[in-house]
């Protein structure tokens, strides 16, 4: 679907809801829940909190729908609300979103040479495990960029972070992932 078509269907759905067809809000939920799941799911792991957050997020979307300006995709706008709501909740709970607990690199001083070329595609399980250990924000950015394949500009609209910051967080996150996965294999080989 092209951007214009996307914007058109966004407009139709939003106009219908604002005209009183509350049922049409289900379309908004269906169209965005996958993206919202990536954001909320990567930022918080607690199941009950996720449920509360999702309700909170979509109620905010519903209440503020009239103020949506169609300057971005509706999904990006919803994702931004999802991100902000979850971040606020994490801040209230004093859960750090970016602090990196000690990385493997710092712990073991990995030898740079030679790099082990062992990150095989079948090792997705290990990748998932290592990804889960990353700070919430890194996890989210990696997922939005590599899984949802969103351009940096859109990720920037969702997270309110400058594109440069997103880029450098992504570099850092990938480096940690690569080092930790390499370390994982090194341990296995010993």
């Amino acid at each position, binding site marked *: 679907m092209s951007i214009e078509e996307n914007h058109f269907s966004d407009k139709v759905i939003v106009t219908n809801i604002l005209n009183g067809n509350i049922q049409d809000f289900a379309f908004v939920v*269906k169209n965005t829940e996958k993206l919202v799941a990536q954001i909320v799911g990567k930022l918080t792991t607690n199941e009950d909190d996720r449920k509360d957050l999702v309700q909170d997020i979509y109620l905010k979307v519903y209440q503020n729908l009239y103020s949506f300006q169609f300057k971005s995709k509706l999904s990006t706008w919803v994702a931004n609300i999802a991100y902000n709501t979850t971040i606020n909740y994490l801040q209230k709970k004093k859960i750090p979103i970016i602090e990196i607990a000690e990385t493997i690199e710092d712990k073991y001083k990995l030898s740079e040479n030679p790099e082990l070329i062992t990150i095989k595609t079948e090792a997705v399980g290990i990748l998932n495990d290592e990804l889960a250990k990353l700070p919430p924000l890194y996890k989210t950015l990696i997922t939005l960029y590599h899984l949802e394949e969103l351009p940096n500009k859109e990720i920037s609209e969702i997270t309110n972070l400058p594109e440069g910051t997103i880029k450098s967080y992504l570099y850092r996150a990938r480096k940690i992932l690569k080092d930790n996965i390499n370390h994982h294999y090194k341990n296995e080989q010993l």
Partner: protein
Amino acid sequence: MKSTHLTDEMLQAFLLKEIANDSIDKHLTECSVCRAKLESYQYLIGSMQKITPETFSFDVTTIVMNNISLYEKKKSKKQELTFWGILIFLLIAISSFSIPFIPNILEVFYLKSIIPTQLLLGTGVVVLLFLWIDIIQQYKKKEKKIFNNNLQPIL
């Protein structure tokens, strides 16, 4: 030049085609250390598309729609309460302001003969009736509009 290896950032940017640079190309052909690192990143970035997507363990649409209809019910109840509150307040305010004028108004009916009184009452009743019918008509029109809107085909 093997003395300065490529940074991790450069390698990633190179893989993601964020930068294109002949000197990077050249270094990679000469340096096996950086090439190995590049390959690690290549595998990582390649497998990243296979990350298991997050899913909710509950039906999002059902939960959200229930929550929103609850919110709407609360909102309309609140609006109704506000409406009645304002109406009652206005009624009390107007009647308390009009108390001093009541004797004057009654005087009109006592002094004049029966015909002007009837005329006055008759006009009042006609005007009230007219307003009443108008309100009902408008209500029906709006109700129909809302009804039609709900039956609109979903796009």
